Structures are given as structure tokens and as C-alpha cells.
């Protein structure tokens, strides 16, 4: 697409400009830094022109194409936000089910369009709230949900058939999904109409997030069985949210975030295909790949972040089409949720965080996200207050309704700098994926501790650069104010755990123990059998009245627990 004569002409004019215009200026006024770097470490040039893209052999139809078409660089839908805005989906939940329900209804009343459910750590780790290790953590970083009773209260007066719900749940994803299904069922809503997501991404737990229970192999079988079961039973449900967010939060560079996420995706696809052979279904990637979804972070470094999303989209499309032979375009679409980068929030001068999250949200939207959470300005200090969360939603609404950036599809497409960055990040990420492939795939790489060590190293190097002042952060190492922030923070009432435990005890008394024991025994039996899908058995155990802790406990008996080697 580049006429060599035209490119030559631009090159000549560019050199002329450098010599006649820039050089004299530099003599009078040198630039602020000798070198400008992106967060990935790419050296940024003063100016980008068609010459840069021509040198990369850049070709419009091959690299970009059109929105809604392979390779989906410009977006997965033909009309993007002109047709349908992204889902405003704030991750939320704390204290008891009642408080969480109140917060959800508040969020919906001020314009949130989807729910995102945060569970407390005991729920994420398969412990009932009266377990000794659970006690202090009940209701702290999310809602406690040991039984469907709690789930029912959380969704009181919320139309489960109309709203989509995303759940950050991994090692106990099947138990929690079962509760959601049963509560919907009790309201006459069959599971096939339910829309939403379970995170169900155990690989990233091993790499960065640390909320795993079982050893890697049974954990992968658990995650894979959910993907297979949901593909058949819940056509509107995203059975996994393959997450790069937690890599970024742990310190990953943009290329690492792309590469480790897509390498996880590749591992899941291989596992599903392999277990599909044992279970008789699925037979091809197109049977389940349209329901795979993704999750990334948005940092403040605007253009590189936009490039990150675009590169990831193009790469996944290629992986699905060329590596796995997908035929259905939906299998090739990288649909993703974004959360603004929590690690970039500062405890110092907390209101400044609103400015950061606005830029981060803009990056996600210019990058074509399907759903967005904007962190609240007070989250480096505590859980967000209602007032702080409202502003997070307002940030999204101002961008959507006032900024005009949504009026055309992929407005940065074709920008020389952004396209150059997109290609550069893609190249870096491919190199990392090749390395992981060389180790035998992501699960093997995790066993070697490789991605964990790479992320830890990146985090440490980043911090050293902050220390040296190479990475300026307003309020932290520049424009510092001595005063401690005094803002209103949200506290979880400690009485919550007593209430949750009381309800749990009541639940335990009211059930038929014979049925519970039978269901748990069945579960233990199939947990040992590789050819059986676990999900129906967990659903039945929940239906019979087994609690989250009991189900997880039964699986612990069969599979054991995992203690990861610590890498610093």
C-alpha cells in the first residue's frame, strides 16, 4: 500500500525537517530527556510518519482490516460503541449479603449496566465462614457466600434474567455458579437464559493472584470441565475470563501481560480439546471458543495501553484461526473486560486518582473494551465508599456521553505512532509466547516458576526506577505533600460474620444429611475419574444442601492442597 516513490519523498522531507527545523531548535532548547521510553522500554521517537510503518512492511488490509472482521484489530463489532456502549460494570461486594444487595441496587440506580460480584477470601478459597482460617476475613474483600441462601439475598429484587453478572471466582467457580443457577431456578429462570461470566482462570492464580486450592493438574481439570459444561448448558455464559489484569498488577510489562494471558488461553483450549476426547464433546474449537472471554488492565500510559489491546486482539484471532483451525469468526474474537490499574492508585493525594482513572478508562475505550470497571479514588486506602464509586461510574458516563471518542470506530487506527506501538508490542509478545511454547506450554512454564519469576523481576525493576525518579508519580516522588490524607473510608462491620455464621448453622440444621452425604460421596468418586465432567455433581451437591466448604473439602480429600514454591 505504500508507493515507494511517495515514501522516499516523505523520507527526504523528513530529513530536511530534522536538519533545518529541529536541529536549530535543539541547540537553543534541548529536549527534557535524552531518551523517552514507553513502559515496555521501547525508545520513542520524536515523530512518527508513514516511513515508520512502511519500514515495518505495514499493510492496512493485513494488519487492520475492518471492525467485526478478521483479524479484529479495529474492534470485534462492526459498529462498536455507535451500536452498543460497553457495559459499565463495577467490581463490588462486601460485608453481608444484605449490604452487597444494597450496594448493587444503588449502582444500578445511578447507571451501572452490569454487575460484577466480589467474594470474600474464604469463599474464594473454599472455606466456610466458621473455619478457623476464615474467621477474620469474612466479608472483608467481598461478600461471604457459603450457601445459596446468601446468593439469594444478594440478588433480591434484581432481575437475574435481564442483568449480566460477572463473578470473580476461580478455585470455587463451580460451587458459586451452581448457587447462581439454583437461585435463578427458584425464581423460574432457566440457566440457558442466564448471561454473565465466571472468572474460572486458575492458571493466573498460580502465576500471580494466589487464590488456588488444589494442585495444578486437578485444578486444570476443574476449570476445563466448567468450560465444557457451560458451552453446552449455558449458551450466554462466559465460562472463563482469561486474565492479564493480575499479571499487570503483580508487575508485568505490557508485552508480558499480553503474552502470558494468551499463553494461558492456548493452554485452556488444548485442555478442553484433550478432555473433549475423553468426554466425547467438544469436537472442535468452535464448539466452545465463542464463550471464552478475557480481562486486561488499563494503565495511565495511554497510547501503549491502546496498542496493547489492539495487539492482543489481532494475536488471539490469529492463534484461533491458524493454530486451532477455528472456522466461526466468533471463536476468533477477543472479547474483554478492563479494570483500571489498581497499582497506579496512590494513597497520597487520593483525589488525584480520579484523573489517573479517567485516562486509564479512556485507554480501555480507545482500545475497544466490551466492559469496564473504573477503580475508585480511595482504594489505595480502603474499600471504596458509595460516593467514590459513584464518581467511577460518572467517569465512564462522561467519556461515553460527552467526549465524542465513541462516535467513530477505533479512532486511533492508522495513527503512525499507535500502529507502530501495536506492531512492536505484538512482536515482543510473540517472542514470549514462543518461549513458553518451547517450555511445553504455560502449565509447564508455571511448574518451572518462569512467568512468576519474570513478573517478580519486572516489579522489582519498576520499583527501582521509581526510587531513582526515572518514573515520576505525582504525590509520591514529585509534587509531594507531607500531610496524611484524611478522607472518609468504608469499614466492614465485624458483626457481619456472626450473622453469616448464624444463617449457615440454620442452613445446616434444615437439610437432609443423608442426601448431602450421598452427593458428596458421588463427588469424591467422580473426582477420581478423569472421563467424567464434575460440574453436574457439584450442582447436585449444592442442590442437596452441601455448603461451599464441604464441597471444596471433599475435593481436597481426593486431590490434596497446593503449596506453591515462593519466588522473590
Amino acid at each position, binding site marked *: 500500500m505504500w508507493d515507494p516513490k511517495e515514501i522516499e519523498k516523505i523520507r527526504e522531507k523528513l530529513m530536511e525537517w530534522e536538519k533545518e527545523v529541529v536541529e536549530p531548535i535543539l541547540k537553543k532548547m534541548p529536549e527534557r530527556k535524552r531518551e523517552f521510553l514507553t513502559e515496555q522500554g521501547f525508545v520513542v521517537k520524536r515523530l512518527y510518519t508513514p516511513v515508520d510503518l512502511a519500514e515495518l512492511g505495514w499493510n492496512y488490509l493485513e494488519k487492520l482490516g475492518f471492525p467485526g472482521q478478521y483479524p479484529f484489530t479495529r474492534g470485534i463489532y462492526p459498529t462498536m460503541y455507535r451500536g452498543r456502549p460497553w457495559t459499565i460494570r463495577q467490581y463490588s461486594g462486601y460485608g453481608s449479603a444484605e449490604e452487597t444487595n444494597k450496594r448493587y441496587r444503588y449502582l444500578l440506580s445511578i447507571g451501572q449496566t452490569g454487575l460484577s460480584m466480589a467474594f470474600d*477470601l*474464604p469463599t*474464594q*478459597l473454599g472455606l466456610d465462614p466458621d473455619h478457623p*482460617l*476464615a474467621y*477474620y*476475613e469474612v466479608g*472483608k*474483600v467481598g461478600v461471604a457466600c457459603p450457601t445459596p441462601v446468601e446468593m439469594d439475598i444478594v440478588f433480591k429484587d434484581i432481575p437475574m434474567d435481564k442483568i449480566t453478572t460477572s463473578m470473580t471466582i476461580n478455585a470455587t467457580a463451580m460451587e458459586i455458579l451452581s448457587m447462581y443457577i439454583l437461585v435463578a431456578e427458584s425464581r423460574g429462570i432457566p440457566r440457558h437464559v442466564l448471561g454473565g461470566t465466571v472468572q474460572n482462570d486458575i492458571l493466573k*492464580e498460580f502465576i500471580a*493472584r*494466589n*487464590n488456588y486450592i488444589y494442585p495444578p493438574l486437578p485444578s486444570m481439570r476443574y476449570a476445563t470441565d466448567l468450560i465444557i459444561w457451560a458451552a453446552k448448558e449455558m449458551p450466554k455464559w462466559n465460562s472463563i475470563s482469561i486474565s492479564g489484569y493480575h499479571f499487570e*498488577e*503483580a*508487575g508485568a510489562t505490557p508485552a508480558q501481560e499480553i503474552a502470558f494471558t494468551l499463553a494461558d488461553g492456548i493452554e485452556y483450549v488444548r485442555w478442553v480439546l484433550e478432555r473433549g476426547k475423553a468426554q466425547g464433546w467438544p469436537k472442535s474449537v468452535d464448539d466452545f471458543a465463542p464463550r471464552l472471554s478475557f480481562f486486561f488492565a488499563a494503565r495511565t500510559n495511554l497510547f501503549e495501553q491502546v496498542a496493547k489491546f489492539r495487539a492482543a486482539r489481532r494475536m488471539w484471532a490469529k492463534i484461533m484461526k491458524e493454530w486451532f483451525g477455528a472456522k466461526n469468526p466468533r471463536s476468533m474474537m477477543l472479547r474483554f473486560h478492563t479494570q483500571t490499574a489498581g*497499582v497506579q*492508585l*496512590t*494513597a*497520597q493525594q487520593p483525589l488525584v486518582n480520579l484523573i489517573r482513572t479517567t485516562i486509564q478508562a479512556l485507554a480501555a475505550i480507545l482500545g475497544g473494551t466490551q466492559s469496564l470497571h473504573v477503580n475508585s479514588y480511595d*482504594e*489505595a*486506602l*480502603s*474499600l471504596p465508599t458509595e460516593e467514590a464509586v459513584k464518581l467511577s461510574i460518572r467517569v465512564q458516563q462522561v467519556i461515553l456521553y460527552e467526549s465524542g471518542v465513541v462516535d467513530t470506530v477505533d479512532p486511533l487506527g492508522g495513527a503512525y505512532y499507535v500502529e507502530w506501538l501495536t506492531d512492536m508490542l505484538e512482536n515482543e509478545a510473540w517472542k514470549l509466547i514462543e518461549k513458553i511454547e518451547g517450555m511445553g506450554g504455560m502449565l509447564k512454564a508455571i511448574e518451572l516458576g518462569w512467568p512468576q519469576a519474570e513478573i*517478580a523481576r519486572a*516489579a*522489582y525493576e519498576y*520499583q*527501582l526506577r521509581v*526510587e531513582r525518579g526515572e518514573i515520576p*508519580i505525582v*504525590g*509520591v*516522588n514529585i509534587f509531594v505533600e507531607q500531610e*496524611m*490524607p*484524611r478522607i472518609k*473510608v468504608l*469499614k*466492614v462491620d465485624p458483626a457481619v460474620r456472626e450473622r453469616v455464621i448464624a444463617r449457615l448453622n440454620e442452613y445446616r440444621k434444615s437439610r437432609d444429611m443423608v442426601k448431602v452425604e450421598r452427593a458428596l460421596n458421588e463427588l469424591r468418586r467422580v473426582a477420581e475419574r478423569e472421563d467424567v465432567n464434575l460440574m453436574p455433581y457439584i450442582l447436585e451437591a449444592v442442590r442437596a444442601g452441601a455448603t461451599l466448604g464441604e464441597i471444596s473439602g471433599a475435593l481436597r480429600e481426593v486431590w490434596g492442597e497446593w503449596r*506453591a514454591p*515462593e*519466588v*522473590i
Partner: protein
Amino acid sequence: MESESTVSKEGRRYKVVVAKLGLDGHDRGAKVVARALRDAGFDVIYLGVHQTPENVVRTAIEEDADVIGVSILSGSHIELVSDLVKLLKEKNVKIPIIVGGIIPPEDYEELKKLGVAEILGPGTPLSKIIEICRRLAEERRRGS
């Protein structure tokens, strides 16, 4: 970066136990701090995630640690640190505690009352953390 100043007069390096207390898995901060202390010449025992107060205290005593550093981002800091302090008292051991993580400013006072030596929130420079660990370790060696 290793220097004389992380070695006591008797020639033993100052020792710090770094742990993630409770069920919270956010370990970026704890790992970065552990590595920075190691690079500064400290002897660092990094226990990692999902640590109970019992395990941290047991390790600190066994290792004769000079400082205990715990990182908590789950909001359970008051309860977990109370247990930690109580266990140390029961064992009649004096080891200074540093708390890092997401700690609301209004809880600083309560943690201090419990006997926490320092609370170091987000944005604290590594150089300051190293300096504080060195001072606390020196004080402990002088005291014992």
C-alpha cells in the same frame, strides 16, 4: 548494595521475616520489599502467602529474627496483627513488627497502640523501608 550497616557488631547479619498474613494473595509489595532488603544486605526469610500468625511467630523465634514485616491488603489487619502481638507476648519475645499494605489512616493509631513499630503504606520509598529495618534491628540487638 550490601554494607557493614546490615551486620551487627557480633558479625551476624540482621534478619527480617517477611510474610503475607491471612488469606490475602496480593504479594507484589511483600516480594519487592523482601528483595530490596536482601539486596541491601539483610538476611531475609520470605514466607510468602497464606501465613498464620502462629507460623510467623514460630519462624521468627526459630530464626531469631530482628524484624517481622507483614503485608495485609484484605482489611483484616487489626485482628491479624492483634494475634501476632499476643503470640509474641505469650512467648515473651520482643521483635519489632512492621505492617505494610492497604491500611486506612484512621487505623494507624490502633495498630501503634497494639505495639506495631511502623506502618508503611503504598508509596513508601524502599530506601526508607531499608533504613527503618536497619534502625529497628540495631535497637533490638542493643536491647537484648
